[in-house]
């Protein structure tokens, strides 16, 4: 086991209103078994030992399923390793003495809160606009009473793998969130339970996405390449088809009664 010494260029920004800049730091004694986030932990310990402010970054489960970690590493979301989140990226993928560039997700809809930490509330707003099914509580239906083809269940599951990290937005040259929104829609629209609110959901979530200030998709497919959960661009195609159908044929809610969202 060999320890590495690295130069890490980190985006430092005091708060949402202050301008930021890239600052180089030396990090010493990093184990090749450390994850990328553990390397940042080591950097922060060394910064604190010198009396400097530690680097703020987002993280939570550190096992690749929560969607909290982010980071643009050397120009690629989550470091660019296939199907890997930053927390699952290991320092053995880097070389001793290497210079590493670490930046926050860059999107107007993801404002920087501090250093590498961004506000992804815009994703929550899109989810709240329609990323759910409405059901009655109390009377659980009999399991398997609705037959679902295996292919449909697989498609729904593939889309549901989205952890909402925002790598798609970060990777997109236009800062578009269409892979995220497409995944949330494809998850529910591949199943019978999602059909009842399909038209309303598609419009509500796409409108929320547009209102949040995300860019427009121009079919570069950088999102698909960057997605740590390997969500396919097919979800965007499905969303495009559903949106035009909903726009031209969906009878919009009147707002009367208690069903209007």
């Amino acid at each position, binding site marked *: 086991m060999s320890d590495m010494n690295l130069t890490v260029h980190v985006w430092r920004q005091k708060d949402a209103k202050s301008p930021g800049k890239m600052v180089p730091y030396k990090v010493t004694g990093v184990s090749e078994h450390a994850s990328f986030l553990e390397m940042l932990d080591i950097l922060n310990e060394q910064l604190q030992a010198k009396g400097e402010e530690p680097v703020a970054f987002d993280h939570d489960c550190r096992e690749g399923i929560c969607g909290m970690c982010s980071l643009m590493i050397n120009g690629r979301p989550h470091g660019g390793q296939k199907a890997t989140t930053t927390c699952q990226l290991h320092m053995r993928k880097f070389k001793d003495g290497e210079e590493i560039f670490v930046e926050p997700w860059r999107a107007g809809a993801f404002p920087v809160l501090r250093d590498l930490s961004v506000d992804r509330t815009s994703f929550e707003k899109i989810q709240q606009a329609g990323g759910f099914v409405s059901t009655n509580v109390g009377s659980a239906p009999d399991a398997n009473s609705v037959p679902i083809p295996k292919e449909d269940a697989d498609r729904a599951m593939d889309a549901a793998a989205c952890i909402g990290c925002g790598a798609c937005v970060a990777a997109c040259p236009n800062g578009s969130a269409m892979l995220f929104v497409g995944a949330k829609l494809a998850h529910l629209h591949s199943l019978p339970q999602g059909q009842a609110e399909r038209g309303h959901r598609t419009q509500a979530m796409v409108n929320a996405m547009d209102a949040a200030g995300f860019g427009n*998709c121009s*079919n570069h497919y950088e999102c698909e*390449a960057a997605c740590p959960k390997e969500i396919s661009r097919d979800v965007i195609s499905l969303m495009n088809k559903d949106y035009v159908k909903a726009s031209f044929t969906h009878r919009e809610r009147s707002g009367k009664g208690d069903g209007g969202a």
Partner: protein
Amino acid sequence: MSWFQRYMRSSIGAKQVMAVTGLGMVLFALIHMTGHLQMFGGRDMYNGYAHFLQHLEVKWVARLGLIAIVVIHIFTAISLVMKNRAARPVAYAMYKPVASTPMSRYMAMTGLVILAFIIYHLLHFTIGTVQPQYFHMLDDKGRYDAYSMFVRGFQNVGIFASYAVAVFMLCMHLGHGASSWIQSLGWRHPKYGTDKLGPILGIVLFLGYIAPPTAVLIGMIKLPGA
């Protein structure tokens, strides 16, 4: 705002407008190409085709329709580029694209070159301000001699070169656009390799468009009596 305005102003509506207007222009480009391949059929055939187009009952309907399509495509593109720039106010210090292609990333630039060329092309062959001395010639049947105008035009190396650059830009633009519309309309399906359609159409149009002028330049297509 009506539902239609909301659709047109939405991110997905805008890209579907780009898709449909783009597709309209691709169809025009294909028809235009087959028209001009008739240069290989000789002066009589080509002038006959030009005469047919000139006397088409719906000539102005087609022209205005095409102009409308082009204008909508351009204005939607400008609005999208501006929104996309605004969506990333701070640029990355390091950004490495891996999936996109030069074709997809330079759509705006190739589009502007094509627009500039179309204006020049219309001034040359439709309005007649580039080479007015060759514009109103008649052939032996009393029709406009479009054939000779074509040959004299592309015997000029400068005109040929500008045309070649523009047709290459068209090839690049369609390399992305002519498969992108399928995804934008939501018709992309794993059973059909439609992502190859753009590059294939781009190459077909490039070859189809460059062939007649090249034949003129190398002396394969000659002026009548030459």
